[in-house]
């Protein structure tokens, strides 16, 4: 089938414009891309074509891979008890809270409820990191605990994705064996590739990462563990060795954030139905409120205990989320558990959770004594 160059050119131009606007207005490019996707589909009649589907799927996998690759395992080990407690509560309580909320106020199926609830359990590493950085709090011990808890929250959400239609087969075992094998040999394989073939125009390191990620994602998917889970686990495995090769990570980010991530967020926006949002605005706000309230219930006590200088600030930061939440909701839609209305409601609540808790957190910034 021929590619529709009208929509291709339009989407490419829109991605450039959203990039410029994000710099000019100093707001998130991902949110603008999702907004542009809504406009393209709702007002300009642009449809999602096969190439956009592919790029967006690839983008979702790469974003999940990078989320795994950026997990600081050393940081996790250093604050294991506290970060697992806070991160665990930041996952479990919102999951229960959202399920209770959706069960009480909607007639959604259990799988739709579960998919939407999982999408709203996340915490955004990017938001947490940037807010701490903006207020020059990043080097404090408590900040490292908040970041570690965020990692735990994301790990649990991505493990939790497997709660959607759990089922196991021989591929599941193959996936586990391959991951165990990769933990042992991947650092050495990467070292060998970089030494023997690295830093050339063919960019073999990137090809190797893409091949590993797509291969592992395929096996995870075939093993009923979902491709994004495979990408995330591979990212975690890479986290141990990829930081030694900062230029590889930098190139991976360049490819992801120039092409794949915009495709992912534009497509997510194109899947949002404006009439569905307008008709269910109360539910959107309710989902956001349920996330923030349940994050508060789940983490405030421990934040007060271990981050006593800034319990509300920390709690609000743990209520943020965008990328992993959108990936989870998209997975729920792609698997057929969320219809367009349910997806629109869930993703809009996820997008709002990237903004509202951040603005509240900034009202509770502690002195630089965290």
């Amino acid at each position, binding site marked *: 089938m021929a590619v529709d160059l009208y929509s291709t050119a339009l989407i490419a131009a829109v991605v450039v414009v959203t990039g*410029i606007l*994000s*710099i*000019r207005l*100093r*707001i*998130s*490019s*991902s*949110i603008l891309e999702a907004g542009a996707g809504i406009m393209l589909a709702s007002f300009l009649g642009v449809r999602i074509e096969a190439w956009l589907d592919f790029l967006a799927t690839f983008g979702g996998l790469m*974003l999940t891979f*990078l*989320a795994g690759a*950026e997990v600081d395992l050393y940081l996790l080990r250093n604050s294991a008890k506290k970060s697992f407690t806070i991160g665990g509560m930041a996952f479990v309580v919102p999951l229960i809270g959202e399920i209770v909320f959706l069960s009480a106020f909607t007639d959604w199926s259990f799988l739709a409820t579960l998919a939407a609830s999982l999408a709203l359990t996340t915490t*955004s*590493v*990017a*938001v947490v*990191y*940037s*807010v701490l*950085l*903006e207020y*020059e709090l990043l080097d404090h011990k408590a900040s490292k605990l908040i970041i570690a808890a965020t990692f735990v929250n994301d790990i649990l959400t991505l493990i939790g994705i497997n709660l959607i239609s759990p089922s196991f087969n021989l591929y599941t075992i193959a996936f586990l064996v391959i991951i165990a094998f990769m933990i042992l040999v991947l650092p050495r394989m990467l070292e060998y590739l970089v030494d023997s073939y690295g830093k050339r125009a063919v960019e073999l390191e990137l090809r190797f990462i893409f091949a590993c990620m797509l291969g592992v994602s395929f096996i995870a998917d075939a093993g009923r563990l979902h491709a994004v889970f495979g990408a995330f686990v591979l990212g975690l495995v890479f986290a141990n060795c990829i930081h030694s090769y*900062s230029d590889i*990570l*930098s190139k991976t*980010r360049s490819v*992801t*954030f120039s092409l794949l*991530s*915009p495709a992912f*967020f534009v497509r997510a926006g194109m899947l949002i139905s404006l009439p569905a949002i307008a008709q269910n605005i109360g539910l959107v706000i309710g989902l956001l409120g349920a996330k923030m309230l349940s994050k508060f219930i789940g983490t405030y006590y421990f934040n007060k205990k271990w981050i006593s200088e800034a319990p509300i600030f920390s709690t609000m930061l743990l209520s943020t989320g*965008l*990328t992993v939440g959108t990936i989870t909701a998209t997975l729920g839609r792609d698997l057929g558990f969320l219809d367009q209305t349910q997806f629109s409601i869930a993703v809009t609540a996820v*997008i709002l959770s*990237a*903004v509202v808790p*951040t603005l509240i957190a900034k009202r509770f910034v502690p002195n630089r004594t965290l």
Partner: protein
Amino acid sequence: MQSLEDYGINKIVVAMDTSDYSEMVVARAFTIAIAFSARVHVISVVGLPKLIASEADIGIQDIRISEKEFQEHQKRLIDKYLNGRDLHIESHVLHGDPSNKIISYANEIGADLIVMGSKAYGKIQRLLLGGVSEDVVRNAKCSVMIAR
């Protein structure tokens, strides 16, 4: 009644990036600081969007690289223009919206003067990228000097 001493310059904030004109900024600021025996705070700001929502908006590694570049550039220019003179100097790398950070830092330390440069943008670039120096001139509570 206020005397001339009340209008002295005791603290100077030098806002610099890594561009060519930062040399002019540091040189002008040090000349004033020496004349007034003022304390100098050299700052550089790693720009961050006001609203960050995803990893696409913030590159942790890129930020670390920028921090290092700023620190090295600050050190090089301070060493070059200090040249054995007796001046009290502090240097910092901050993060966030550049104009807000420069203004809030100046307020925090009670600065008397901010010295900074200004990029020569064309009309379209100015429309798209805005101007940090314009913001600072408009909103700072103390005097601002644009070095050219």
